């Protein structure tokens, strides 16, 4: 019911007649009353009319109280009735001073000409609401209330009103008391899910699922099954560290928020939206319910540092909280993990790579990076691959594989096998980027024989990961490994999902924490047989791919 329309109609109705045959008219008339002391005659007329209606039983006093700000004044509220049945939205507020009326506001409906004896019983109406809402109201001792409902298109209906509240919806229903039809439904809670428009780090526009609360919007996804929060640390590194360490719990006040429905903080928009996309990917592709498959809460943290402090930041902070994104499996006050997205660099700050100025965007703006970090959470709750040496490389590989897969899921027309290509301008192969398609060009090994074995980077986890990542690529797309020169017959991009499922199954169900590349090969081949049968095309592709990258 649109209040503005009611008022507009009411003001017209004060002087309108209905005998014009050439244009449609509505049966319903609402009288909008807004008279104060500036119009003594109208106020007197309405005062008399209100008294008459009250004496006649068409208005019923439901509240009367003193004015706490102006002690000499009193206020009364009267509700409109029609043959003893309340008229929804019909009420009057009258202010008086020492018995003299000062103002009258409200809306009254006239032209009501309907029966007030319902055909349906309140129990019948309750059953209808139960059916429509999916909420069993049979346990409720309260019965629906009989009301006259002014209709949008004109006229009135005798209705039953009741509310139905479930986990995902809370609505008020008006059921026609004569035939059981739904006449009106509206949301009950002001604290509701909402979808806002967000502009991401790259300037693209997307929908963001948030919570609407008291006129503002917070990054609390109400539409997806798990609790999914994005916290904006607003550049307060101390608070960020305390939250990551679990010393302090993040609260509603820390949530990314915006008073408007058009969000412009790109990192908050992307971190929140991309976490949702990643959850969707796992659910729709594999039926997985979040990181732990039990819909544990998902937390992302943005703006852990201030962009303007980048130039003065020590290298440890620069490469941890500016030029990095990470998943911390035991972070948070409940030790169930958090994502942290690096701030990137201000637009006037760059790194010199050789003679090239490289500019960094916020790390939350890269879909494959967000999916990569969340996949570390999936790994932490499943195989829990130790982040060291071969198992660490497999941990990284699975995050890259799923990161690329999420990109193909969300943006099939523009997706690629390069990780982090949206982080820097320009893109320099191997500098904050990796390629599952062509690892060598990006400075990482594409074959087990040339894997890194030194102690740096936990045993080369971010480099050696591409051996497994490249095997994933070859199993899908096919091709020839540059080092071994062995060719692979892939399943084709149209069958991408087969290889995705194989790697998902192997890495979340079959592998254990200290897995090796050889075990990854065996596990993926087993997964291929499980899903598609021995000697199937996917099994052949996976087997050939591992052989091509030197893992036997």
């Amino acid at each position: 019911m649109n209040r503005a329309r009611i008022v507009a109609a009411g003001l017209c109705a004060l002087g309108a007649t209905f005998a014009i045959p050439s244009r449609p008219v509505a049966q319903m008339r609402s009288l909008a009353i807004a008279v104060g002391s500036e119009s003594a005659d109208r106020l007197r007329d309405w005062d008399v009319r209100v008294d008459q209606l009250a004496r006649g039983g068409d208005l019923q006093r439901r509240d009367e109280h003193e004015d706490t700000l102006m002690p000499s004044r009193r206020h009364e509220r009267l509700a409109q009735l029609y043959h003893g049945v309340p008229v929804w939205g019909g009420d009057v507020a009258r202010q008086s001073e020492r018995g003299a009326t000062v103002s009258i506001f409200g809306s009254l409906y006239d032209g009501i000409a309907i029966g007030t004896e319902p055909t349906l019983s309140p129990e019948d109406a309750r059953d209808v609401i139960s059916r429509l809402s999916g909420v069993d109201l049979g346990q409720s001792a309260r019965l629906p209330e009989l009301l006259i409902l002014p209709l949008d298109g004109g006229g009135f209906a005798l209705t039953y009103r009741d509310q139905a509240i479930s986990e995902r919806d809370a609505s008020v229903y008006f059921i026609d008391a004569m035939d059981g039809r739904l006449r009106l439904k509206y949301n009950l809670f002001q604290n509701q899910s909402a979808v806002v428009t967000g502009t991401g780090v790259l300037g693209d526009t997307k929908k963001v699922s948030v919570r609407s609360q008291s006129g503002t919007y917070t990054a609390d996804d109400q539409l997806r099954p798990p609790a999914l929060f994005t916290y904006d640390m607003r550049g307060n590194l101390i608070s960020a560290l305390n939250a990551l360490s679990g010393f302090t719990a993040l609260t509603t006040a820390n949530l990314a928020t915006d008073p408007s429905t058009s969000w412009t903080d790109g990192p908050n928009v992307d971190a929140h939206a991309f976490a949702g996309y990643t959850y969707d990917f796992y659910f729709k592709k594999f039926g997985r319910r979040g990181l732990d498959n039990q819909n544990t809460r998902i937390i992302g943290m943005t703006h852990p540092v201030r962009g303007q402090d980048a130039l003065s930041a020590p290298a440890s902070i620069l490469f941890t909280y500016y030029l990095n994104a990470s998943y911390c499996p035991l972070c948070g006050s409940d030790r169930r993990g958090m994502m942290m997205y690096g701030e990137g660099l201000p637009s006037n700050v760059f790194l010199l790579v050789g003679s090239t100025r490289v500019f960094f965007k916020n790390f939350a703006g890269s879909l494959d990076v967000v999916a990569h970090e969340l996949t570390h959470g999936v790994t932490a709750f499943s195989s829990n691959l130790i982040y060291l040496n071969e198992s660490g490389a497999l941990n990284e590989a699975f995050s890259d594989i799923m990161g690329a897969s999420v990109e193909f899921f969300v943006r099939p027309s523009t997706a690629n096998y390069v990780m982090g290509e949206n982080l820097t301008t320009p893109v320099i192969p191997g500098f904050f980027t990796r390629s599952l398609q062509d690892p060598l060009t990006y400075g990482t090994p594409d074959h087990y024989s040339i894997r890194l074995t030194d102690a740096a980077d936990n045993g080369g986890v971010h480099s050696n990961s591409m051996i497994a990542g490249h095997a994933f690529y070859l199993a899908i797309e096919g091709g020839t490994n540059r080092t071994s020169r062995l060719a692979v017959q892939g399943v084709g991009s149209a069958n991408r999902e087969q290889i995705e499922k194989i790697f998902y199954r192997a890495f979340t169900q079959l592998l254990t924490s200290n897995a090796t590349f050889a075990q990854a090969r065996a596990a993926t081949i087993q997964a291929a047989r499980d899903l598609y049968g021995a000697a199937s095309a996917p099994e052949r592709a996976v087997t050939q791919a591992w052989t091509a990258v030197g893992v036997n």
Partner: protein
Amino acid sequence: MRHVLLVALLAVPSAAQAQTAWTDHARVSINFGLEQPPSTTFAGTTTIAPVYLETATVNTSYGVSSGKSFDGGVLIRVAGGFGVGAAVSSFTKSQTAAVTGTIPHPFFFNTLRPISGTSSSLERSETAIHIQAGYVISSKRVDVAITGGPSFFNVSQDLVADATYTEAYPYDTTTFSATTISKATATKLGFNVGADIGVKLSKNVGVGGLVRFSRASVTFPLARTTSGVTTDVGGPQVAGGVRFFF
């Protein structure tokens, strides 16, 4: 319906073969019959905006089939065979409408999800006042009145104002749940032409039949529509009943 109309009109020249002057002061007819609104279907589109930041639409295709009608009228002779009068007819019918629509996706732009269902017990109620000028061809036992003039229609129609649906994660589909109904009323000026045959059983009482075509195009106001919902009302009416001659 067309066959009935043809037979009735063929009766006119037959009755006129032994015509005499219309001598009654007035003739009154009371009829029950059938009426078929001229539009057997009409459509309405309601836009519900915004749903997840985009516009949802609900398209309703209303069927309008024939239904019972009641008619009563009087024609008063003013000169010779000419007369003036008025008739009141009413028509009520409950119908079912097909509802289709598109609901935006909560997570993605330009990803519309279809819904479809039906909405039943949508009542159309028409009351028309037909102002008539007529000419009566009369014989000893039979008279035929040819009439025409403006008609004032008052029509009420249950319209689908909104559709409710259920959805669940991952929100790729929606399930039609119910419709929200709004009763709209409109008045409109149209026209009527018709023929009424009366067969006298006595000096003042007889039986007869009526064939009338009336029509007007009305637009019902409905929230969230660009121009309301338009349909034709009236239509061919065939009825029979008693006649009184004064």
